[in-house]
């Protein structure tokens, strides 16, 4: 991965109080690529994404986005940077008091002086891009989970961001929506010439679309490589994760003490 970098993470450490969440993370995200960050729930994936978005400050190390250390920016600088980013939240985070149209138009109205006719055309194009032209007058409560995710995707790409971040984009979707959202993530990345970071634990769907994968466990990178590298990995944790095995480095049983003793059985 030797092309120009859009995001660079160096020796990133982060702790809540004394509890270490991220430990010495080094990652590179070249421009135009679609990269996945995978790992179990609670392993620090979303925390990592929040660092890239400038929501959290690392306790050590840095995160550079488009050549600037994001956590050193003041609020104005941070907001300027965020206008070039898009983030798709786990369940879409659509504004429930607005129609689909107003949701997609939200950033255009907040950040540009475009006339309403142009905004109308742009919103329709974004909705068409995610296959939901015709839903503009519906409210989020009237959409299915998959449709809501696609509307959120249209809102995320409203201002053609250079960096798109996806937080668990496949969570809770039916198989058809899963494929549709996966395909859209790949297509939009290529069409917009953007860089995408997908945080997910859905291995099968994401391996179909990504260029590169980082595997995180307990806040540290334990494996990385292309989709094929990950599929053929000999690393025990990765194998268990990719093939969904019940037991392995991640044990089936919670470390809950001596079960036999609890039942009064003498061994």
């Amino acid at each position, binding site marked *: 991965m030797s092309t120009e970098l859009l995001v660079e993470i160096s020796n990133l450490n982060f702790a809540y109080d004394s509890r270490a969440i991220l430990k010495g993370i080094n990652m590179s995200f070249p421009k135009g690529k679609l990269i996945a960050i995978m790992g179990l729930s609670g392993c620090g994936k979303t925390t990592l994404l929040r660092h890239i*978005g400038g*929501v959290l400050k690392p306790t050590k190390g840095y995160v550079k986005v488009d050549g600037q250390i994001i956590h050193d920016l003041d609020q104005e600088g*941070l*907001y*300027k940077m*965020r*206008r070039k*980013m898009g*983030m798709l*939240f*786990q*369940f879409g*985070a*659509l*504004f*429930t008091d607005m129609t689909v149209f107003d949701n997609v138009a*939200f*950033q255009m109205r*907040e*950040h540009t002086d475009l006339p309403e006719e142009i905004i109308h055309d742009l919103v329709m194009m974004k909705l068409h891009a995610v296959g939901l032209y015709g839903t503009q007058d519906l409210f989020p409560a009237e959409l299915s989970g998959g449709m809501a995710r696609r509307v959120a995707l249209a809102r995320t790409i409203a201002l053609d961001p250079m960096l798109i971040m996806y937080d668990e984009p496949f969570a809770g979707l039916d198989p058809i929506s899963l494929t549709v959202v996966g395909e859209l993530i790949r297509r939009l990345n290529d069409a917009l010439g953007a860089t995408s970071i997908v945080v997910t634990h859905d291995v099968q769907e994401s391996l179909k679309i990504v260029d590169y994968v980082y595997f995180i466990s307990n806040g540290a990178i334990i494996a990385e490589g292309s989709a094929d590298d990950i599929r053929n990995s000999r690393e025990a944790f990765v194998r268990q994760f990719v093939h969904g095995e019940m037991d392995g480095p991640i044990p089936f049983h919670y470390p809950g003490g001596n079960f036999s003793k609890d039942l009064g059985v003498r061994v």
Partner: protein
Amino acid sequence: MALVSSLRGIGSRVVNAVWRIGYATRFFLMTLYYSGLSFRRFRLTVREIFFSGVMSLIIIIVAGMFVGMVLGLQGYETLKRYGSESALGSLVALSLVRELGPVLAALLFASRAGSAMTAEIGLMKATEQISAMEMMAVNPIARVVAPRFWAGVISMPLLAALFSAMGVFGGYVVGVVLIGVDEGSFWSQMQGAVDFRHDVMNGVIKSVVFGVAVTVISLFEGYDAPPTAEGVSGATTRTVVESSLAILMLDFMLTAFMFGE
């Protein structure tokens, strides 16, 4: 050990309470600082005035009417003992304009609009709408909180005035129409007793102060609510309890300043 532990518990509660007061003050100052958008795009504030003010009209009108009717009935029974039934108009108007109008309208506003504001913002936080806004480089304090704050501050005195007006009408219906107090003396006593600056304006000042207190508490509780169902439910309850206590406490302080000798 038990003593140390209980002392530690008290200390922790005090520190938490002080921390929350500091956080709420900072939140209030931030709301004022980022209020520009609420006036530059006034339709955002107008929309919130509709939700918090206009939607509270029914409860304010009905409650104001009944409170005035009760005042008319009780006031007449008491004044009759001293042969001063003609003073019913001034009793009803002064009670409403000075005290009951601002206080009861604020209590109703806290229960109806304040709790709704807390629940709405709390749920926006729980469903990541606030985070999404921040990630879209839109300041949620400026876009979500400040318009609601100004809507509350603008709506509150208007609702209190309406409450008082409906109360006076309720008092008139019971006192004059049903009981038969002389209509001329009812209105003339009222006109003579109520001073615009001393009574009406002080009532308006009270309702503005209550409006600020109720909306700040409601918005802060929503914004600070843990992003869970229990968190939002607890925050909504706290809004009603804290707002009600704040209204009654502030009312005593303001009354002491305004009407104390």
